């Protein structure tokens, strides 16, 4: 064995190829089957997609690095389920490109934060967390309230997501900009938005101001949908595990 190595280490290309082969095995065996084994991801025919406003909010969540302190993955442990709600299923992040499961809880898990607090609470909390929770160490995000949301190219975002597997329709892509504005403007015509994304779509002035669409609107809209795209985690596993 060491004799063979004595010869290999005299040839740089052989050494390089050997390194690549030896290093590739683990990843191939652990990752490739995740795409082919059906049981890896549960099925949920009623799974919804993010609306353009929620998607924009998700991009702000990523831009601000929220994932560095907040996980979105409730583990299968009793205390986590009691604290945060039913443990997370793979199907719930099926349309998350990339996933935001996180790795650290400086703040609490957010996988099921949707609907837990009011819009006003979220807005006040984001403007200055210590106004609402005096001991909080979260940064202030007051600038989100003043920043108008960029919606002009949201159609491109939806199209890119469709290319990686999210079932956005042509109609959704064509109306992305208008739908983003409509979701934060309850007095406008929102019939098209609700028709495209379903009756459960939340249409509100999320930041409390119905005249403008801000980054605060988008982020709160996203936080309020967390854990609500699929109800699979709340139904008994027998119904979701088998197709």
């Amino acid at each position, binding site marked *: 064995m*060491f004799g063979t190595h004595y010869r290999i*280490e*005299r040839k*740089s290309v052989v*050494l*390089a190829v050997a*390194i*690549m082969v030896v*290093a590739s*095995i*683990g990843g191939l*065996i*652990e*990752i490739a089957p*995740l*795409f082919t084994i059906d*049981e*890896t*991801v549960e099925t949920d025919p009623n799974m919804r997609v993010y609306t353009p406003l929620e998607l924009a909010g998700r*991009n702000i969540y*990523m*831009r601000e*690095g929220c*994932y560095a*302190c907040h*996980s979105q*993955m409730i583990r*299968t*442990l009793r*205390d986590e389920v009691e*604290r945060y709600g039913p443990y*997370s299923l*793979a199907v*719930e*992040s*099926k*349309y*998350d*490109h*990339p*996933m*935001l*499961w996180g*790795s*650290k*809880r*400086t703040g*609490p898990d957010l996988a099921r934060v949707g609907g837990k607090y009011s819009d006003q609470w979220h807005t006040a909390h984001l403007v200055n967390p*210590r106004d609402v*929770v005096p*001991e*909080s160490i979260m940064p202030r995000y007051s*600038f989100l309230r003043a920043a108008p949301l*960029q919606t002009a*190219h949201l159609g*491109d975002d939806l199209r890119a*997501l469709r*290319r*990686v*597997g999210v079932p956005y329709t042509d109609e959704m892509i064509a109306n992305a900009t208008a739908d983003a504005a409509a979701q934060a403007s309850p007095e406008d015509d929102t019939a098209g938005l609700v028709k495209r994304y379903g009756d459960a779509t939340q249409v509100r002035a999320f930041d409390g101001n119905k005249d403008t669409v801000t980054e605060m609107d988008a982020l709160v809209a996203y936080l309020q949908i967390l854990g609500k795209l699929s109800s699979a985690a709340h139904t008994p596993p027998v119904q979701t595990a088998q197709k």
Partner: protein
Amino acid sequence: MVSGLTVNERQRALVVLAFLAILGMAMTAFGAARGDLLQMHGFVVLLFSLIVLAPVLKGYFAPEPPAERLDDYYDDPIKVGIILAMIWAVFGMGIGDWVAWLLAFPDMTFDAAWSSFGRLRPVHTTGVIFGFGGSALIATSFHVMQRTSRARLADQFSPWFVLIGYQLFCILAVSGYFIGITQSKEYAEPEWYADIWLVVVWVVYLLLYLRTLARRKEPHIYVANWYYLAFILVVAILHIVNNLAVPASFAGVKSYSAFSGVQDAMTQWWYGHNAVAFFLTAGFLGMLYYYLPKRAERPIYSYRMSIVGFWGITFFYMWAGSHHLHYTALPDWVQTLGMTFSLMLLIPSWIAAGNALATLNGAWHRVRDDATLRFMMMAAIFYGLSTFEGSFMAIRPVNALSHYTDWTVAHVHAGVLGWDALITFGAFYALVPWLWKRERMYSPVLVEVHFWLALAGTLIYVFAMWNSGIIQGLMWRTYNDSGTLTYSFLDSMIAMHPYYIARAIGGLLFLTGTLIACYNIWMTIRRPGPRAVPVGDTPLPLPANPQPAE
């Protein structure tokens, strides 16, 4: 520096810089037309190319360098790489300590988007891992590949392209986070165009390495080079697969990952854990395997342990990533595989660490007297300790407690401060006098002071985070007699406050040590020593190499 390049090489530099300037202008124009942040990054690329252009133009009309230069090693890029690494160290650790204080006193920042914790945190991680660590790895790899091959670098242009091109990647990454450009993948935050640029730089790096090895005058490739090669090759594989994405538009910064949900989680932690393995471990083991035996003037303890350690690390590490996803929606069979291989990984890790420490047998008096060698010894000890801790934390029930807590942060910093940074400082303290042809460092006392500051800082940091992590984990799972959870999340957060202050103080000590190192290195470069002869570096013709003992 530029006058050492041939006219042909200077012209190649001009062509590359002109290409970058045009690329920068195009990015600015397309980005502006779309109203996208890409215009800012186009401006960064343009500015970068102009800044690098200045010294190239200044030295452009110098006479051709003499042909005798080819009889010696080519060390200019190594010198610049060391200085760049130290600049990144101060920057990255400075931001790191700032964000550490922010966790204790959240309003210790500006009321502006760029300075919020969420944007500064990847600036810290990228600054220290890729800026400091990456520049140090590139610089030392150029030194080690030449000395162990006893051959000059294959050409003079590629090393500059790799070193400076890599700086552009790091600058794009860090400036991007400040202005809000990130794809949010941990330790792989830069967007698609920066990722493509890194692939170009990396291919040139690999070719340079292989071409230099091809010129070697030693029949065998020394073990340090195996590690550097694994670092280059495997990081390339990880980087390309993890960053597969579809841009929303070629005139915009935003892209969407090719993978989603559980597959993306597995891919990201396959990348994330092996960035630890092949960036933060294999590359630095390359450093350890050269500079430690050189400084101790002892041959590597065991050739066979080198082989077993190297191939064990290369094979086992790639399976271990899934231990970051215990009890999640990742299928159990992958979690079990990840845990099993993480435990087996302890064997090659300890073989590598033990091989390094056993090399010091017969040289322990040097460890006592020479702070530079002590840096390397302490690095090997921290490497052994953190790999043990890593395998321990990969056990599922242990991970149930440690995951999501500061224990993970303690573990990471035991590795990066205690192992990566200490071996780098040890290597630099050995290298700087060799490269600048000084008898020794400007002040051995300051090296000593740096050693104790770095060690104290690391220990305070790690103990603070162990305490806070374990307390956090226990508070989250404590039940009272009536069967309900005792503590709210907020209770656990309040309990962290004193530890966060202790951690920030530990970080400050470490940063102070780094600043002292900068001063010491700078003074060594500026003041010629009494004897302008390099002591200890391997000369080209003489066979004075540390050879692995049979």
